[in-house]
């Protein structure tokens, strides 16, 4: 178990059902996202990705110790950013939300004791149009 998804579980599950693939390609395979992520559910084998509702973290639940990467999805999940100590954290900031406290949480983390990394130069990922990306490392 190395990945955990934290957010509103109803929405995360809906997103995992989405089919991905290139519809322009002839016979392009359309596979549900869940086929790659293998979320924890009733009929899974030994390995799976836990989908943890943010509210659960507020009630004292911690991420599994074997977890190396956590994806925090918007609103509620960032509140626990300071309590999450897995090596890689991906925060998905929804810019369309009228209230910017989510982004402010990230910037606070960026400004306190962190080292910037460039997503383009260091991670070799060019954000697509209308995506703003910010990368940094923090010492624990």
């Amino acid at each position, binding site marked *: 178990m190395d990945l955990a998804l934290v957010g509103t579980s109803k929405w995360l599950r809906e997103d995992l059902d989405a089919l991905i693939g290139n519809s322009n390609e002839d016979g392009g395979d359309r596979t549900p996202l869940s086929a790659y992520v293998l979320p924890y559910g009733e009929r899974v084998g030994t390995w799976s990705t836990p989908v943890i509702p943010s509210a659960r973290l*507020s009630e004292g639940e911690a991420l599994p110790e074997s977890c190396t990467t956590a994806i925090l999805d918007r609103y*509620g999940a960032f*509140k626990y950013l300071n309590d999450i100590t897995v090596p890689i954290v991906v925060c998905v900031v929804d810019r369309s939300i009228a209230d910017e406290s989510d982004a402010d949480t990230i910037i606070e983390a960026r400004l306190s004791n962190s080292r910037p990394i460039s997503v383009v130069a260091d991670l070799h990922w060019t954000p*697509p149009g209308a995506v703003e990306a*910010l990368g940094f490392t923090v010492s624990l």
Partner: protein
Amino acid sequence: MSRIHEVIHRYATARAVAEHGVSIFAVGDPSGAQLNAAIRRTLFTLGDERSDVWTDLLQAANALRWRRMTQPQPNSYQPAQVEIVEAVLRHTKRLRHFVGDESLLDQLAASATAVSETDSPLGPLLLDSIREVGESACIVVATKGSARAGLQVWLDQAGVPVLVPGELGHLSAGTEQSYVIAPPAFVPSSLMTAPATSEVTFVIPAWFGNRAAPCSSLGPHAEGRIEVKAAVYEIGDTTEPPETLPNDTEVMDTYFPQPVWDSRLSADREPASDEVMAWKVLLGGGLALWLDDGDRIRSLDPRQPEGDRVGYTSVSDVTQGTYLVLREGETERGVMYDQAMRALGPRAEGILATQERWKRALQQRLDQRGVRRAADELFALGVRSAGQVRAWTEARLICPQRDTDFALLLEWLAMTSQPTYDNAITLRRAVHKASAGLRKELELAVSQANFRTLERDGILHLDVSHEGFRGMIVTRVLARSPFTEIVTRSQVRLPFSDVSAQWLD
């Protein structure tokens, strides 16, 4: 549309607006300009050191100006405006006994009267623009729920939906144009950097000078930053009244209705043991609350799906617009604590004893060294939440949120960690369990509540059947004081009546 399709659509509109920019219609409004000039001249003449006798008048005049900008419907659709104009006139009359130079009062009174006698020219322009684009292809965006309520009554006849920035998620297909009734500076930057429609137009009075389009808060730090350009179109009679101050005059003028906090009343001292530092929080429904820096507080997020709306917000995140779930007459913390103690049965006594012991030891330390030094020492040891050390003496705040903080704290107190540590964790778990039970009850009550009412009134009474939890309310935070006061512990987190939030919403 599935969520994924909505996201794809949102990226397409964001790319379109990032490329083509937004439009600003700056509409001439001579009466509004007269009021704006009178307020700014008054602020400039009185300067930073102005006497408190002006506060009520300026607050009413500012509320009137804010409405003129954000609710440009005809005056026949402005029932609350009459009341504010009356307040302006009443206060100017009262001030004539105190003030030597009455010309400022004359200008304020005359311009308030002029505003009440002429409809805003923004209204007809907005109607024309809507007709040009077609009712089904556009939406109107209001600054917040109270402004939306005012605009919607008027725009119902035009058949156009009026929304607030938080509601732009699910528009019907074919919506191409948003008319935002506020300057870019007074709405979230998301309206420009993640717009719901591929065209965005701001309709503002020409007398408002700041037309800058702000970027997202992540933008300045990010790669792929979005910068939106704004094209300004001046429309109608935009001549400024003769008393207008030159544009570059520096005036402390916020436009946005803000509470007046006066100055701090508490003396500069550390609180006594039955006291605590707390911020004053003004709430919808004519309520207020003292909020101490301790446990997170129960909150509601109406944007979440059913079943996920009730949660917690840390004290530092309680800001304007946060919805708090409160109980009239008693704090939630107290009731949860009592319930947890009951659930622990025979174990409760032992737990209570170790809790009392470490809290007493902490209180003694604080008495010896003072809070500041104690917090510094703890912080040096690695206790991240050391700033909350005073709150931990309180019986009902079980222990620090982070377990390692608690272990370090016990070490600093030179106390053996067991069974004190395990007892506290057991109690905390029991409280979490009790509050998870309450959360289910609240979710159920919230699922039956009407959010439109909450948005319009800023307050909503919940129907909860759970024993000990009758009288729960949801209320919107309107403002939070920039400084803390010293209040007694029994006062904190209990809502009480307070009228200083008048016209803030």
